[in-house]
């Protein structure tokens, strides 16, 4: 199936492209708009972005495979990123990660069978004074405990 962004997404793409003297420079914001709407970057979307930026498809692929933000397959409706770097590790991040993993029944990198939550580990989220911390779709939480994490998960499952 071929890819085409919605008119609203296309308008955002045009607007962002106008901010740079070279088309390729807009690739991260453009991919961000595509992923925000479609949930992931399909092969067809890759081809569309390449054509729009007037570059070979490999340029898009090498960017997609470098940055951790982008997905090339569908993920959960919410993404839970848990920091496992130094300050969070000192505050028990591994225990929180195990707890979440058991509660969701998935390993980091996986999505729950109901499609509600993708769990990923993160390096320092820049919130070290709130360790251990995590981020859900861009919203910071911390310091978290098993109890607060359980509540966050319930909330996501209920509204997902």
């Amino acid at each position, binding site marked *: 199936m071929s890819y085409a962004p919605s008119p609203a997404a296309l308008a955002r793409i045009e607007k962002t492209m106008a901010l740079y003297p070279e088309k390729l420079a807009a690739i991260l914001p453009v991919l961000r708009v595509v992923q925000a709407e479609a949930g992931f970057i399909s092969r067809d979307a890759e081809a569309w972005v390449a054509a729009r930026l007037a570059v070979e498809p490999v340029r898009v692929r090498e960017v997609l495979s470098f940055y951790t933000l982008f997905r090339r397959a569908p993920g959960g409706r919410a993404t839970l990123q848990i920091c496992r770097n130094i300050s969070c590790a000192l505050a028990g991040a591994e225990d929180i990660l195990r707890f979440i993993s058991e509660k969701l029944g998935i390993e980091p990198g996986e999505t729950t069978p109901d499609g509600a939550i993708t769990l990923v580990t993160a390096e320092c989220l820049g919130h070290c*004074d709130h360790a251990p911390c995590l981020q859900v779709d861009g919203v910071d939480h911390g310091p978290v405990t098993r109890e607060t994490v359980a509540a966050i998960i319930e909330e996501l499952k209920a509204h997902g």
Partner: protein
Amino acid sequence: MVESEVRLLPDDDRSWRLEAYLRRNGYQAARRALTTMSPEAVVAEVCKAQLRGRGGAGFPAGTKWSFVPKDAAGPKYLCVNADEGEPGTFKDRLVLLRAPHALLEGMLIAAYGAGLRTAYVYVRAEYAGLAARLDEAIAEARAAGFLGGRVFGTGFGLEVVVHLGAGAYICGEETALLESLEGRRGQPRLKPPFPATVGLFGAPTVINNVETLAAVPQILARGADWFLGRGLPGDGGTRLFGVSGAVRRPGVYELPVGTPLRTLIEVHAGGAPDGRRVKAVIPGGLSAPVLLPDEIDFPLDVASLARAGSMLGSAGVVVIPDGTSMLDVLRLTARFYAHESCGKCTPCRIGTSWILKTVDRLRRDGGGPADLDHILRLADGIRGRTLCPFGEGAALPIRALILKFRGELEQAAAR
């Protein structure tokens, strides 16, 4: 108290808007610079203030600006490094959260001094919410005539674009940031040429950290001597020191450059919580070699930390408490660098992944002291043989962990 009179960060998260910033005399320094000073005088003032880069390398900001060729035709750029990814660092977050207009005013002054007309602020993906706030602040400043064309009625103008990253620690390295901003994988460039002559889109470019630029208005408002007097000769001003880990009051502390590390930890951050003791301190983000508890009687400035065999880096202090397994810390450190190496040069790509494999062998049956020596050899094989400072930033902390905690690591491995 005189020290606390002038502060970069307001105490709360609500005073970030233009109106509040103007009440704190905001944009008056930029007005003074643009309407009464020549660009050269602005750069000279910042040189005299000895404002050292707050991003990690500690390079004097004024000197960096003076490298931009004055007569070059075509565009020149300012790139603001808001990629804050050094583990244990969270100070730029607070600037974006509480003082976005201080950053914008500093950018305006820097751009005027170095003759730059377009700025890109590269914000890490995980700070997307803060980037949205910065966009709001930019809109406020534009509406008030502080950004855009003909600022303060002068012939000078500055356009600011906020650019979100996409998750990669290495994009904080300045040339990787440029590659990323141009739309490619964030892999560092060989220097020279330096960005000041060949930077973004091949044009002269200044790259500065968020906190560095946010400190600039203070210098123009009160003068270089005042700024220098707050810090140390050769390293002026106050800095935002982040403290996390085993302390009573983790957070960001705005203190004079040269404040003793011990004072920061024990007085400002409240020391270790009841019943805990300090086992080790990482003074400047994960890339800074670890210090022992009897090695923290140093002033916090670029030169002193270098003398102490570590580095001030991003001034993110991490306090490690007793009871922490240093083998776990070693493993975490090795994992981080192996995972984040951009892979462009072999000693770093292969070296960091072999170090991680060797740490893992150490943790399995049959690991032993020879593995520690092997890791030290691998770390030495990276040092001085890489394209960018990431290699050094990986090798040095790993080396320090082994040299300072060898006994514990050997015991842990034997178990």
